[in-house]
């Protein structure tokens, strides 16, 4: 067409833009491709700010506390934990479910949001996937030592042995082993595959030969050729499709650990969807908890924008409300079903039991506090978002505490009732798991690009093959400032 005008071109590319309802851009201030690479690689290449060290040193101390706590546990015996009859699942399982749940946001962002083409995921997926992997590592420690004889953990794997025994495939605890290990493996591969082009960028920018070699080794000879990109994107798509069922399956299986048992307070059919919603809820809260300071600290405001925070706050609001619905439905069913043990279990959970305080902590943090995200000003005030995210972190821990030990402490017969509180060894282990998590995350910030450089570039308007050439020219001049 000879009379193609600039306006027509725009309409062809972004119909909505031309009509004056443009989408908020995902990268602000019209940052150029070069700026994005410099800014993100700069985090890895430059000296870390003082605050990195201020956080790193206590994290390592926390990690050492974890090692000490486990050493003390193994060398002395499981009696150093506060668990006993009737509460045999205490903080260890609470923390396991807590950490496993946190990982779910990473998988959701990397897999489901990828398949549904939510372009805003590109700024958060790398950090969220790293968070997933580190959270699953933390989670794995707890059941590993919960089995009592850590050196017998290999019994969990179906390996032929001279005992002539085999795993009990009817047990949800075994399903859990497979679910969590699959989850970890797929997450790790997904994360690594995503890193390859960025590792190549770091390799190409590296000054010293050693650095070139280390990044070069992990970049697997990436050259960014057309064929490589084609294979890479297909692999990424397939991995995303593989990872998608995991978002639902892992926490479903975790919930089966409880739901398939007969303990009142555990034995409910609502558990799988309720656990999955809770996991995504808690996971997004942790992503925000990590990303808000990182964004400020490393000057990533143009990449991780209010739009991202707004979206995640909305997800927290949605999943928090689903979780609240589940809480209320549990109460309703316990009344409506008319099972005496069930009714009693929930009566004791909310009114007469020894742990009612935990229930109300949970309810406030998880159901009431996120409701503030109905308001736009709250979603856009970083302090409000940060505080609510931490309420959710705490609330999700309390949720697992409310479900696990408090149900066991009030079993069928009053003769089996008891009270559980964690010993200092369990508490040290929990604090230590945060140390390990933060330590790994800070090392990740130090050595790997925190935002997926190649993917963020893909959501810039100029990455669109139909982006008009005259705009591209103007962009060339823009990068200088």
């Amino acid at each position, binding site marked *: 067409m000879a009379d193609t005008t600039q306006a027509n071109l725009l309409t062809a590319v972004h119909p909505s833009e031309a009509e004056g309802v443009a989408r908020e851009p995902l990268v602000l201030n019209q940052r150029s491709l070069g700026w994005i690479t410099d800014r993100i690689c700069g985090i890895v290449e430059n000296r870390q700010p003082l605050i990195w060290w201020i956080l790193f040193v206590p994290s390592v101390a926390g990690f050492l506390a974890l090692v000490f706590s486990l050493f003390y546990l193994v060398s002395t015996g499981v009696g150093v934990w506060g668990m006993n009859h009737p509460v045999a699942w205490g903080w260890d399982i609470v923390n396991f479910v807590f950490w496993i749940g946190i990982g779910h946001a990473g998988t959701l962002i990397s897999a489901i949001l990828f398949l549904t083409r939510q372009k805003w995921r590109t700024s958060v997926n790398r950090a969220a996937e790293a968070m997933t992997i580190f959270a699953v590592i933390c989670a794995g420690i707890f059941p590993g030592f919960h089995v009592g004889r850590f050196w017998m953990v290999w019994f969990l794997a179906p390996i032929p042995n*001279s*005992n*002539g*025994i085999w795993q009990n495939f009817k047990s949800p605890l075994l399903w859990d082993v497979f679910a969590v290990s699959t989850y970890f493996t797929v997450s790790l591969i997904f994360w690594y595959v995503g890193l390859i082009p960025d590792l190549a960028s770091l*390799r*190409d920018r590296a000054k010293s030969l050693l650095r*070139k*070699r280390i990044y070069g080794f992990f970049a697997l000879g990436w*050259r960014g050729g057309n064929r490589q990109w084609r294979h890479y994107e297909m692999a990424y798509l397939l991995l995303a499709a593989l990872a998608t069922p995991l978002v639902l399956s892992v926490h479903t299986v975790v919930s089966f650990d409880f739901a398939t048992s007969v303990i009142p307070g555990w034995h409910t059919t609502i558990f799988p969807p309720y656990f999955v919603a809770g996991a995504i809820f808690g996971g997004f809260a942790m992503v925000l908890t990590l990303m808000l300071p990182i964004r400020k600290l490393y000057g990533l405001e143009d990449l991780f924008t209010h739009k991202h925070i707004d979206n995640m706050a909305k997800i927290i609001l949605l999943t928090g409300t689903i979780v609240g619905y589940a809480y209320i439905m549990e109460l309703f069913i316990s009344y409506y079903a008319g099972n005496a043990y069930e009714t009693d279990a929930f009566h004791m959970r909310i009114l007469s039991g020894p742990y009612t305080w935990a229930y109300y902590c949970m309810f406030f943090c998880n159901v009431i506090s996120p409701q503030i995200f109905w308001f736009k000003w709250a979603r856009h005030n970083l302090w409000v978002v940060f505080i609510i995210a931490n309420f959710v972190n705490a609330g999700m821990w309390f949720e697992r505490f409310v479900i696990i030990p408090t149900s066991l402490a009030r079993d069928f017969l009053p003769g089996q009732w008891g009270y559980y509180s964690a010993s200092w060894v369990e508490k040290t282990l929990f604090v230590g798991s945060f140390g390990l998590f933060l330590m790994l995350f800070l090392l990740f910030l130090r050595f790997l690009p925190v935002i997926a450089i190649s993917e963020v570039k893909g959501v810039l308007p100029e990455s669109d093959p139909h982006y008009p050439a005259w705009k591209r020219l103007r962009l060339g001049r823009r990068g200088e400032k």
Partner: protein
Amino acid sequence: MGNIFPRWTNLLAIKILVGLMALGTCVVAVAWYSWTPKHTRVGYMPEQPIPFDHSLHAGQLGMDCRYCHSQVENSPHSNLPAAQVCWNCHGPGKAKADSPKLELLRQAMDVNYEGYTGKPIEWVQVHKVPDYAHFTHQAHVNRGVSCAECHGRVDQMPVVVHEKPLSMSWCLECHRDPGKSLRPLDEITNLAWKAEDLDSKAFYAYLAEKMETSVSKLEKADEGKKWDRELIGAHLQKAWSVHPPQDCASCHY
């Protein structure tokens, strides 16, 4: 992109991978062979303080196992004989009373002997299951499991040797299919017993009474079948309702 890596690294990854796979295979093979009771226990043959010869006593002389291991039918633990049991035959003026091999026995028993100490003989235990695995002899020997099933042909051993692995999988092998290891109760300590030794007439009569059926019916059902331990064991398992437990708590309690 420059040449970061020298040329010789081209095949390094494959070499490392092959090396690791070979190493892994070796580790598994070595562990499989040498870290299981088949290797670690079988063949254990400690020297005893008195070189007691089972092949002589239980074999040639035909002594019953229960003469010395007298509590095996009434106790989880099969006892070793006190020195008094040896003394019954090897006392002053009796069999081999002056043998130098019995020095320790005289020290333990003979009050008139100059070297008398009264100290019991410290036999070395050969067959031992771990503390957390409870094995009971009485449950087995009273249900048709011969000594030979776990200890082998002790009546042919000059020195007792650990012949079977006694591993958990080995226990379970029989617990999952006990028929082939059962024999009539009065043949328990007859280590040389064979299926042909059994009088089929008397056996069917015993079964018929036990299972409240007739001899002819049983014989008819068995027509054409080979008369072997498997057949006898299958009958006994049915007659005695032998259902060995397989849950963890049956041995680990």
